[in-house]
């Protein structure tokens, strides 16, 4: 369980980082907190020729108030968000989600951007930030672009990021004081990746109702009809949720489908009761 050989580079800034990634033409991998990539390297499932260490790029570490949104640097650790509880008005859900990720020793190193770029189907941030309608800012060697987090992931461990692109930050819209949210996941053991998960944001002031199911084969899936029903005050039945899941969550057996439906229902109940 030792990683195969690789070269290591610690660029001084974002430009150098994307240039190094571009030069390697797909043979390099960006290393942020390394809490998912580290195990994959040790198991030799991943064998990049070069690791580009971006964990300590200062420009990725800021948490800034953008007026109607919070700007969270891609290199911000889960633990920092967990500890920011009470200090990020309108982004309480972020702190709650961060607290539930893996274990403190992992949260101290793992980053928001790393989790999004790694795109594990069962990970917390791709699900939570899709429900929160966050936007990822992405930098490449030549230009920068923005994409909704909901459209970032295209499959298991696969995103729209090019080999030489990095996530720089995520802009998370601030919830109004009337907003409600729910976040539920089924984990066999605290800190494990969930078997089923769901996230919902209901914000009357912004007329926003977003519901996503996670821990599927691929990216989290939106359930807009159920979200609208929940906004109108109705918690759908498990059978209705299963029916809504059927076209977007394929390949689930009966137990899996029920588990996902219950996760969705519990997230909705949390939101309405909160």
């Amino acid at each position: 369980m030792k990683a195969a050989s690789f070269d290591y580079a610690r660029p001084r800034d974002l430009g150098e980082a994307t240039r190094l990634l571009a030069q390697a033409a797909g043979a390099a991998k960006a290393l942020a907190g390394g809490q998912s990539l580290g195990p994959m390297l040790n198991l030799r499932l991943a064998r990049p020729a070069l690791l580009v260490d971006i964990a300590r790029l200062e420009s990725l570490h800021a948490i800034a108030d953008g007026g109607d949104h919070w700007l969270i640097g891609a290199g911000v650790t889960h633990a920092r968000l967990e500890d920011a509880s009470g200090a990020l008005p309108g982004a309480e859900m972020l702190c709650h989600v961060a607290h539930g990720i893996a274990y403190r020793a992992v949260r101290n190193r793992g980053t928001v951007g790393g989790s999004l770029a790694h795109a594990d189907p069962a990970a917390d941030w791709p699900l939570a930030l899709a429900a929160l309608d966050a936007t990822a800012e992405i930098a490449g060697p030549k230009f920068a672009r923005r994409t909704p987090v909901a459209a970032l992931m295209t499959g298991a461990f696969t995103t729209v990021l090019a080999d030489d692109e990095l996530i720089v930050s995520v802009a998370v819209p601030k919830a109004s004081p009337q907003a409600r949210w729910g976040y539920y996941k089924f984990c066999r053991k605290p800190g494990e990746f969930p078997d089923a998960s769901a996230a919902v944001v209901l914000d009357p002031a912004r007329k926003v109702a977003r519901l996503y199911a996670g821990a599927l084969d691929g990216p989290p899936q939106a359930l807009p009809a159920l979200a609208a029903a929940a906004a109108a005050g109705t918690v759908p039945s498990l059978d209705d949720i299963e029916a809504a899941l059927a076209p977007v969550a394929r390949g689930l057996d009966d137990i899996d489908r029920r588990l996902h439906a219950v996760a969705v229902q519990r997230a909705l109940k949390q939101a309405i009761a909160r």
Partner: protein
Amino acid sequence: MTTIDLTVNGRSVTAAVEPRQHLADFLREHLRLTGTHLGCEHGVCGACTIEMDGMPARSCIAFAAACDGMSLRTIEGFDEDPLMAELREAFSAEHALQCGFCTPGMLVTAHDIVQRLPDADEKRIRLELAGNLCRCTGYAGIVNAIKRVLAARKAGRTASAAVAAPAAAPFVPFAAAASAPAAATPPAFARASAGEPGLAAAKAGWTELVESFVVRRPPAEVWRILGDLPMIAACLPGAELDEHDARNVKGRMRVKVGPIAAAFAGAATIERDEARMAGTVRGAGSDGATGSRTRGEVEYALQADGAGATRVAVTIRYSLQGALAQFSRSNVARDLARRLIGQFAANLDARLDPGRAAAPGPAAPGEGLDLGRLVWAWIKDRLARLFGRNV
């Protein structure tokens, strides 16, 4: 080799390390700090937990080369720490260890719990300990030891006034503004669509996947094309044909899923039923790099789908063993197989009708499936057309 300067247990250390060496090995092998234990070596068991810049972290999934400039504290560095002295005492009094293998990681985690969460109750202690595995104690002694230290510390300070949480106003229903969720998949000309999920019928340990796609060519033509093995290999991203006759095929399949790259080499036999326009491919392959093996079969059947088009129904059954399977908890292989079918359908269509090549172009032979790159290429192409220049 990379040269690093760092502080370990208050002492300055300069060393040349191989980038691939993980931090725990560096501490144990270079510095002889063998109090840091290695259990799983992939970040699950917590035995290797140390303090990195004052915060607990797994040293088995950090790399020494990445710790240049950091300040580390291993269990040996806590000798003079007053809180750790209390914890050691409590661990002893409460029988919080038997073999002692998990203890260094447990103590570093316990130190963090007491410092960060002075009001933690038993439930919270257990939650915070979830990342450290112990196979001897059943955790009871460890939890009691931490409770004992917290209680002793609490007795020594004045109780903080409880802050009442503000009462939440009841939820007021509202009409949500219609919002179309962003599509994560690019539009493809030939769309793969779902069939009956047939998981219940799958053999034990095998995964079954039922998909179908439409090709805008009559069944007889599609049937002929599907018998053309080099053509099929060219449409399947990452596939390479080594040798083949009408019934047997040997080849390789490269897949890239995020940071995972695997190259399966294998062989398959093909049966085709001309009358039913249906076929079966059975095969097996292995990937030396990840130590993974797969066996599988693909059944396909053709049916007319309106005038001049054919629906190809595909059933894939496979089993996966080895490192890739251990890792594949979230059905990565199923997602991959589904995307491969979609990509195959798009590539087949683009080949049959080059003028219509609106879908992402076929991957270069041997490049492997990398949908991220394909999608990005497609977006870039769209942008270029929109702005009339190369972006």
